[in-house]
């Protein structure tokens, strides 16, 4: 659990982060959104003390982060940034092994961990461990960047626009990887993005910032249905908020009992995708099936639309 209390940062008389307080639960993904210059990166960087706060404090598992030297704190917190920042003079394996090495792990343990991570990110250790970063594609570099951040099994992973430079297909893949990582390692993730779809897709909670202040920090659905402020409503997108809301629920969660008729949609698809499929096919009901084809229930157009309204 990360507790942020009254955190502020002032640069030359300008308040860049203004008394932000928030509690980030263990094993959740929190996404920070906001306009450019609203202080997102600064807030994130105050958590691992890359930026020293002007006021307030940060507690991780109840311990004030100022109790230990900043660089030791950072070794326990994963950090991944846009443009990955891989060390160009070190191999992929050496890059990933940086923090374990700083922590004094044995060579065998480092190697085992590097291989495990490369496999998690679908990079063949034989082919890639000894490659130099410039030999990888952009998507691969970005995956190595995240793998490096996870190397020392940090309980917390901070990410600043990690997928900003990726094309839509690789970006979608990277997002799935991230969900998988949280499931697998139980990591608490704090992520900054400009992409609202990404925020709603990944975030258990979303924090909206503007001018250094935290306007709202809530579940995605509540952000849509009860925006605290006109700015939040604009940020989350008035025009397609119903569709956004639909995208937060999966077909499996919304499925009605009984076997229906019409096209099949997978249980993991969002209602938004299910609706699109029904409109496309000209049907008004659909069968919900698991990935392996077993029936899970059915959905009607009416049932889907009900989920798109604030209740």
């Amino acid at each position, binding site marked *: 659990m990360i507790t942020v209390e009254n955190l502020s940062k002032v640069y030359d008389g300008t308040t860049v982060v203004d008394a932000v307080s928030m509690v980030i639960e263990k094993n959740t993904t929190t996404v920070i959104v906001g306009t450019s210059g609203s202080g997102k990166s600064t807030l994130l960087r105050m958590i691992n003390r890359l930026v020293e706060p002007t006021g307030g404090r940060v507690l991780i598992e109840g311990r004030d982060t100022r109790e230990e030297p900043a660089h030791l704190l950072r070794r326990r917190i994963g950090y991944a*940034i846009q443009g990955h*920042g*891989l*060390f160009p003079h070190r191999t992929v394996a050496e890059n990933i092994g940086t923090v374990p090495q700083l922590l004094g792990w044995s060579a065998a343990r480092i190697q085992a961990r590097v291989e495990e991570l490369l496999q998690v990110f679908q990079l063949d250790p034989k082919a890639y461990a000894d490659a130099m970063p410039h030999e990888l594609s952009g998507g691969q570099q970005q995956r190595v960047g995240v793998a490096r951040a996870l190397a020392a099994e940090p309980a917390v992973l901070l990410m600043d626009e990690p997928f900003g430079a990726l094309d839509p297909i690789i970006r979608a893949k990277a997002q799935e990887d991230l969900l998988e990582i949280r499931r697998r390692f139980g990591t608490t993730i704090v992520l900054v993005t400009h992409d609202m779809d990404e925020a709603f897709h990944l975030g258990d909670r979303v924090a909206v910032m503007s001018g250094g202040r935290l306007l709202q920090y809530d579940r995605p659905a509540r952000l849509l249905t009860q925006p605290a402020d006109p700015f939040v409503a604009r940020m989350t997108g008035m025009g397609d908020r119903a569709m956004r809301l639909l995208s937060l629920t999966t077909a499996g969660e919304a499925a009605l009992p009984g076997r229906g008729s019409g096209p099949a949609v997978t249980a993991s698809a969002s209602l938004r995708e299910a609706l699109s499929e029904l409109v496309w096919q000209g049907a008004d009901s659909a069968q919900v099936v698991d990935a392996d084809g077993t029936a899970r229930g059915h959905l009607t157009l009416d049932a889907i639309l009900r989920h798109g309204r604030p209740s």
Partner: protein
Amino acid sequence: MRPATLLRCAALALLVSFLLAPQRFAPLFAPLTQYGAPPIYDQGNLLSLALAHLGTVCLAAAASTLLAVTLGILVTRESGREFLPLSRTLVNIGQTFPPVAVLAVTVPLVGFGERPTLIALFAYGLLPIFENTIVGLQTCPPAVLEAASGMGMSARQRLFKVELPLAMPLILEGVRLSLVINVGTATIGSTVAAKGLGEVIIAGLLSNNTAFILQGGLVTGLMAILLYDGMAAFERRLLRSVRIE
């Protein structure tokens, strides 16, 4: 690549064999002499002169590398930032000073002999290394530095594990420039009585013996080219593993 390597080896072989047994080359130089003057420099051992020359050059370059890299690191740290703009300007101004002028002004201060040459070579050699160290350290990609700190490297670890390795190709290029300039300036050191190959050339100028001039010129020239080339090959090797986009 192949012919170049061959050329390099040939140049090295020529230099070494000439220095070891210069008399064997006497017939080649004889046509350049007049009135029965000696065709091969006879007022000292060419090999020991060449070694002294190389020694002076390398000693000065080592000292300037040490100081210039240290200073370059200091002015690029947070605490040294105040000195950075001035340092850059000084390097720019300093490089307009001709090395000969630096040497000439040093003599009156410390007297004749090796010392003024060493000091002048050292002082002038600082500039390219200092400049390249600063540029190398300042052009490390910001994302890489941010990642290094973000992963928990201390300032020291970041410097030694990330910044210096990334700046190394540029720093070495500075050392190479220094070395080459030094080989040339050191020949002029002989006008202030430093031991070196300049002696041979000057002796030739004074006694109007073209053979001497040519010997001295060829040996220093070959030495400079081989040094330059050797350093460049070393840098290329290092660069192959570090490529920064």
